[in-house]
């Protein structure tokens, strides 16, 4: 393993650089995935059959909370990577723990939102609008939930092994994933919720 000391630890070997590049390629496939889900939603958004429309269903309060949590967690994972580059293991782990807790709170609010919808009679089967809404939000929420478990795994490794070329690489790649989820959420916030409430 050849370590290039002029680069940050997470890029320091050829394998590490390749893994980061490979993850960007994966994100390049996630973009069309979410684009198709948004497409279905935009086509279906006015087909609410006998169910509620977006403006009847959405509540701005929980949505703002979700947005605040995800924006803040994207900030803290950025700080975690920054602290990692400075070599502060403890600060890295604290920032990462805050990130994951905010991610968990986000998923909690989203699950509560889904329960509320279903109680109001707005289920996956009610209308084309609701099917596409649940699939779009659910796919994003599933990514956040998976990210939470992945992040916990990485924190365990950081705690046991410290900041090494391998753990730094994993932490950095995780941060890319987390920021990407925030980007997807920005579009959900704008073009699903705000547009629905317009």
């Amino acid at each position: 393993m050849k370590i290039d000391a002029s680069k940050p630890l997470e890029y320091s070997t050829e394998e590490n650089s390749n893994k980061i590049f490979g993850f960007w390629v994966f994100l390049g496939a996630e973009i069309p995935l979410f684009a198709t889900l948004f497409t279905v939603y935009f086509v279906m958004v006015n087909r609410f059959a006998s169910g509620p429309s977006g403006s009847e269903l959405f509540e701005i309060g929980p949505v703002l909370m979700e947005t605040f949590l995800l924006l803040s967690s994207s900030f803290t994972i950025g700080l975690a990577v920054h602290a990692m580059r400075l070599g502060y293991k403890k600060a890295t782990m604290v920032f990462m723990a805050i990130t994951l807790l905010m991610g968990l709170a986000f998923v909690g609010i989203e699950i509560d939102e889904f329960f509320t919808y279903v109680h109001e009679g707005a289920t996956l089967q009610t209308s084309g609008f609701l099917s596409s809404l649940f699939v779009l939000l659910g796919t994003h929420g599933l990514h956040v939930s998976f990210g939470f478990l992945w992040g916990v795994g990485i924190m365990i490794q950081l705690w046991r092994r410290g900041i090494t070329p391998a753990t730094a690489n994993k932490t950095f790649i995780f941060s890319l994933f987390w920021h990407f989820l925030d980007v997807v959420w920005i579009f959900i916030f704008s073009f699903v919720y705000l547009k629905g409430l317009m």
Partner: protein
Amino acid sequence: MMKQLFPIRHVMGYLASLVLSAAALIVIYGDLSSSANMVVLLVTALIQASLQLFVFMHIGESADSKKELYLNIAYAMFVALVTIFGTLFIFVWGWYA
């Protein structure tokens, strides 16, 4: 130490994203036309997405494969835009509907 852990670039990026999210709320609390609202949403969302990409994800950072990386993400966005707007053109904006 605290100053070291909170780099100004990240803090400014975070504040900007909060301000942009709040600014987008004008579409529900303000009194703009619906096309002006769509412009507000597009502009605030695109700036926020770029903030994430450039400030937090450091997209321009990897020296070895920078060109390939930009190309890959640009192509993914191209496919995304063609999928979304091509479908809207056919099914929603009147070609077929």
